């Protein structure tokens, strides 16, 4: 197998293209996970690697959240079952691990089952970079190649940075989405209350009853017809329904 020459320096124009693509992917993919997936796909060609995977630390395990090659889930599962492998170690030691040649014996000594699986699957070199969350390591970025490879620190730092930015965006997106949902629910609840209160006033005036009694009539009518209270109130206000 031929040794792969890693890029020694990042071309600023290529970096600009990557960052433009990155921003574009964040705008095009509203879902955080889709954005991360899109970023990983772009990084594959930028870094000239065969595959990329991103896992999150959840309940003491690594959960694969994005990957660009069908072989990665199997590799991930092998590591999870054995509770041993470079991803787990990179997270535990909070340190980047790069393996130039899986076949040189040192990887097999540290993670025998993982290395056997990786070689059988066709991988020859790997790099595993912890991803930093707000206060701790939140996951790991894994790069795979099918040839031996000398990993360039600058390129790895760039890849990690891009993924961390995507992760931060994702965290913000989830929070904003949650707020948007609640805000829409609040708007709907307020609109609904306005029409219900108006209906109470109309019925109170129409029958000379209190607003409490008017509300009870609305409620009983809605329940007996299996209708929503708001729908009954709207009928009272807009269609002249009297109860």
């Amino acid at each position: 197998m031929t040794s792969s020459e890693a890029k020694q320096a990042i071309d600023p124009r290529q970096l600009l293209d990557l960052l433009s693509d990155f921003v574009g992917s964040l705008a095009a993919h509203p879902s955080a996970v889709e954005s991360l997936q899109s970023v990983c796909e772009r990084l594959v060609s930028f870094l000239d690697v065969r595959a990329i995977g991103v896992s999150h630390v959840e309940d003491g395990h690594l959960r694969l959240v994005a990957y660009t090659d069908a072989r990665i889930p199997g590799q991930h599962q092998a590591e999870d079952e054995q509770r041993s492998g470079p991803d787990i170690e990179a997270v535990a030691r909070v340190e980047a691990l790069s393996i130039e040649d899986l076949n040189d014996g040192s990887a097999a000594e540290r993670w025998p089952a993982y290395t056997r699986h990786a070689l059988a699957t066709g991988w020859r070199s790997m790099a595993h970079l912890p991803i930093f969350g707000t206060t701790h390591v939140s996951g790991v970025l894994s790069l795979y190649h099918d040839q031996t490879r000398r990993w360039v620190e600058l390129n790895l730092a760039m890849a990690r940075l891009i993924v961390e930015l995507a992760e931060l965006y994702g965290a913000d997106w989830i929070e904003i989405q949650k707020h948007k949902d609640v805000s829409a629910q609040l708007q709907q609840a307020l609109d609904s209350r306005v029409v219900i209160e108006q209906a109470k006033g109309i019925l109170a005036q129409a029958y000379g009853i209190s607003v409490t009694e008017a509300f009870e009539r609305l409620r009983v009518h809605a329940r007996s017809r299996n209708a929503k209270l708001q729908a009954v109130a709207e009928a009272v206000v807009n269609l002249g329904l009297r109860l």
Partner: protein
Amino acid sequence: MEATAILRTQSERAILRSREAVLRSRELVAKASATLAASEDIRRRFVQGELPTALLRSLEGSLGPLGAVSAAVMIASDGTPRGEIRVFGADGLERLDHLEFLVGEGPGTDICRGGRSALEPHLAEAVDRWPAYAPAALEAGAVAAFAFPLRCARRNMGALVLNMAKPGLLDARRFEGASDLANCCADRILKMQSLARPGELALGLEPLVGTNMRLQQGAGALSKELGILPADALALMRAYAWENAISIEDLVGLALTGGLGLDQF
């Protein structure tokens, strides 16, 4: 220096700058996490029945630092104010309470309609903008008014309104403090509402909307009496209140009993 070395140096600088951006973003996210932790405390207090006063406490605590004599939080839907909760730092300002609901205009109302900010350092000079609100607020003891949006996903879900007893602009520190308070209030309101069942208003928000909802009851009753739309009835009620200088409670009471005598309109 060779071209490749220059490119490499430029790339490294770009990475360093990006790394700094990430660190700043982390700080922001850390702040958000702290807010989230605080919201857990809010949730616990809500379960214990303490929450309806949480917003009031935030507002009361802000009066001194922001130099305000009264502060209110308004919530809105469909660009219309739907509720207000207000605190006072001095006696004799009570007529500011729900004044914007009574006259249908003012700084908070402008924000609820989508404005970015409503900053009037001299209400005496804002009579053209708010012909009903400005004189009434001045009479009630407010000389300046500043409103800031309660934002969620680029939309205004309400407003923070500050009233001052002295004229003059907010300095940069107070402006920033007011913006932060508005964000905090928006966050509290959303956290409260997140505890409600779908379609219902959170229990903790009831004190905000109570007065406005009674106004809607009155509008409903008057609309039935006069055979007009509730929105038109509300406008008539406001005109009546303005003419007769009565409170919302009295206004609603009269509307529900047919005592407004507006059938000549």
